[in-house]
């Protein structure tokens, strides 16, 4: 088993050597190099065209505008925080007591209750 694997490894190495040693015709080598240069040139031209295209920057502009708006809102004049529910209830109770005191004072004036002192 191990000997067979070793022989397979040696065989594959020989195949690789033969493949590497086989020369390609010069015309083919030249055409491959031309094809590579053309592919790279077209890729570069495409990238430049995408960068120049105004539509490319629309999403970037929209995102920047949104971020700017958020920052401006965060740093604008502070808005008083809405009262908490407990505060509202407390204020309501205090107002009720004040109204009751006012009623009591008005009743005292009207009835002319003599001073206890």
């Amino acid at each position: 088993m191990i000997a067979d694997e070793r022989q397979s490894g040696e065989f594959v190495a020989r195949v690789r050597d033969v493949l590497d040693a086989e020369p390609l015709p010069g015309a083919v080598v030249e055409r491959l190099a031309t094809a590579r240069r053309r592919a790279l040139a077209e890729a570069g031209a495409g990238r430049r065209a995408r960068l120049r295209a105004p539509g490319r920057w629309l999403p970037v502009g929209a995102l920047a505008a949104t971020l700017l708006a958020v920052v401006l809102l965060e740093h604008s004049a502070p808005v008083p925080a809405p009262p908490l529910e407990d505060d509202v209830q407390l204020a309501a109770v205090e107002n009720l007591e004040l109204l009751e005191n006012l009623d009591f004072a008005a009743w005292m004036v009207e009835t002319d209750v003599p001073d206890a002192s």
Partner: protein
Amino acid sequence: MHSAAPLNRFLEQIEQRAYRIARYAVRDADVALDVVQDAMLTLATRYADKPEQEWAPLFYRILRNAIIDHHRRQRIRAAVFMPWRSRNGADLPAPGELIADGEQAEPEYRARLSGAGERLATALEALPPRQREAFLLRAWEGLDVADTARAMQCSAGSVKTHYFRAVHKLRETLGDDWP
């Protein structure tokens, strides 16, 4: 911005092996050049921004798809121009049968090959396409099992099976005393 230099180096390193792999598959020098050129163009225009270690499996996947497209077009062309052969749909010529003429058109290329190279080329061309592909990508291009599987769009287990069978078949065909 992505620099073109690493991609140029990568393509320069693989272009000749890619051509030979394509040529074993399509058996025509001009078609092989066309599919390699298309694969280079696709990689450069669509996938140049991918990490460099992904380029090889991506490139060979693109090349493989281009070769499959070529065979498909050949079969359709044969069905249109040789309809008597495809009457039952099962009698379409195999891709190798269709492109055998291309092989005869370049005897000077054959003449350049040494005896060992020619025997190897014949043995490689006789392999089933998936076995040949797995063998060349693993043994010659040096892709690992995972990258070969990515390029061939199959599982790692399939790659190992195809590779094992290819080595076995080549050893059987060429003999242990080759070259």
